[in-house]
């Protein structure tokens, strides 16, 4: 589904990603772990198409197409979803109405009819229930006055509603209490399926207890230094990044 080859990315002239190669097949969940500043969010943003991230070398192919040629909304329409590490507040734009616009834009791209207000509300209620997002929050302005945990839940609510093929979740677990973590993990697991893939960025093994990854990558200083199975995450938790980086590759 996703193939990243020798990806080099600069931000404001500064090299951040220095040759990343990664392949994610449909049905797989990959975790990306790595210290602060190693380039995890940068990778997520590049996948979603944010401006200001210059790809100086390499390629990204998604469902057989050149992803880098697409604008962000086209990527979303093709099924890419980014769960933001720091979701921005948008005062004055209601969560639910913006999602309706988003869903209908995506449906239009797929050649489907727009959902009417009633069907949309039904769907939204159903999805909000999955992540236990209170009705009141679905109607408020996007992330406006949301607590850290509420924002993250809102991201998963949106993902559940938009049903992406490739979800990139950037530290969706940070800021969540233990119960919320389970709820969010359930939301993610509910979406797992043979047609979908996920890239889960996290610092903590505990998320991976709930969302068990097929592959774990360790990203340090813009490079993937280790790739392994779920046990690699456990090893990281025990030994820290420097040990893992310096250990001979498996």
């Amino acid at each position: 589904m996703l193939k990243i080859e020798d990806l080099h990315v600069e931000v404001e002239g500064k090299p951040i990603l220095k040759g990343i190669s990664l392949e994610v097949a449909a049905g797989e969940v990959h975790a990306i772990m790595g210290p602060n500043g190693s380039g995890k969010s940068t990778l997520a943003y590049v996948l979603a198409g944010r401006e200001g991230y210059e790809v100086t070398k390499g390629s990204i192919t998604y469902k057989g197409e050149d992803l880098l040629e697409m604008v962000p909304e086209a990527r979303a329409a093709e099924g890419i979803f980014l769960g933001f590490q720091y979701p921005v507040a948008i005062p004055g734009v209601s969560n639910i109405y913006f999602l309706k616009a988003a869903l209908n834009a995506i449906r239009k791209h797929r050649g489907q009819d727009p959902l009417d207000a009633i069907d949309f509300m039904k769907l939204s209620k159903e999805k909000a229930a999955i992540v236990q997002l209170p009705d009141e929050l679905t109607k408020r302005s996007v992330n406006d006055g949301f607590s850290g945990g509420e924002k993250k839940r809102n991201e998963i609510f949106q993902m559940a509603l938009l049903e992406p093929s490739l979800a990139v979740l950037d530290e969706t677990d940070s800021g969540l209490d233990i119960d919320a973590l389970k709820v969010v993990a359930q939301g993610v697991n509910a979406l797992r399926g043979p047609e979908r893939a996920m890239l889960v960025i996290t610092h903590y093994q505990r998320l991976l207890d709930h969302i068990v990854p097929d592959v774990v990558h360790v990203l340090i200083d813009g490079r993937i230094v280790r790739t392994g199975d779920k046990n690699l995450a456990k090893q990281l938790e025990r030994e820290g990044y420097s040990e893992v980086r310096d250990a001979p590759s498996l």
Partner: protein
Amino acid sequence: MTDTARQTLLRSLPASFETGPEWLRSLRARAADALREQGLPSKKTEAWRFTPVRSVVDAEFARAPGDAPALGSDVPEGVRARSLRAVLGSEPELLEGRLELAGPPEHFAALNTALFSDGLWIDVPAGTVVETPIEVTHAVARAGVSYPRVLVTTGESAELTIIETYTGAASDGLTNSVVELDLGPNAKVSHVRVHENAGMQVGRVDVRQAADSRYQSTVVTLGGALHRFDVRALLQGKGAECQLDGAYLVEGEDHVDHHTLVEHQAPYCRSDQTYRGIASGKGTTVFDGIVVVHRDAQKTEAHQENRNLLLSENATVHTKPHLEIDADDVVCSHGATVGSLDDDQLFYLRARGIPEDLAHAMLTFAFLESIVDRVRHEPTRARMREALLARIPHGDEIREVT
């Protein structure tokens, strides 16, 4: 002294005023004399620095027939709405001293005083609370100049909502309006103005507030060849409050200029101003707000904010909020910003699948809608939203999802 010879608009001033009660003839004559003496503003007039006033004063206008605005709906119970011309004919003494704009008239307001032929007097007697808004429409039907005049008087503890709409497609017409509001003690007036005429408009709103009265003004200005509005609120009685809000939008070669002046003349008054503007195309916006706190106006609380989105390289934004404070025990703030749409917000919307231009429009609409949201009367709020949606790109799609 201004060279008034070239100010074509002044040629319509008659040599003398022959009709109406003596006090009115005298009022008009004083206004006309002042105009002949001082002229209308010129490009050297400080308060008109950013607005090309010559295009108004030097232009040739025929007098458009009829200055009287239309009452848009049934007049709600409890409100007396009468034609100024009729009252001036039958009971002129009722209006004596009430059309004087709290001081010597100047500039366009003086011209209106000299030349208005008719208008409306809206009065709510003491103790009367009117829920249903009274609607006043000034439709500029064709090119020419008109001088709408409205007087609103409210007795003690009266409450009123008034919605004024200025419409018209003629881009070469001129509307020179004056609206005066006199709020009695503890009266509450909510005043909504929607400016959506394509032509030129110069408008003055003059508010005089007795103790504990509350005036809330919400102005929506949607483009226009040249629009200039001056709102002046005089907080004359202790504990009076005024809230002045505005949302404006220019595109093409529109030019919109809002001036506000709030004078705190008595202690324990509050004023709060929030104006938000969007400048796109080759449009120009001007905001100039002054809060004056007189020496005796202790315990004043005054806030003023002007935020602008500059959406095109060819558009221009001028903003100048300022304070003149002579009292020492006051809480005042003022600020202005000019910025563009937030990249993080835009990306968030696009990353969810919303096309770039729709994302732009959604954020633009949200920026202005926050002003309209302050109007308490729901149907009025809905109408103002509609007016905005009609003007914003992708308005139909935004309406669809909201």
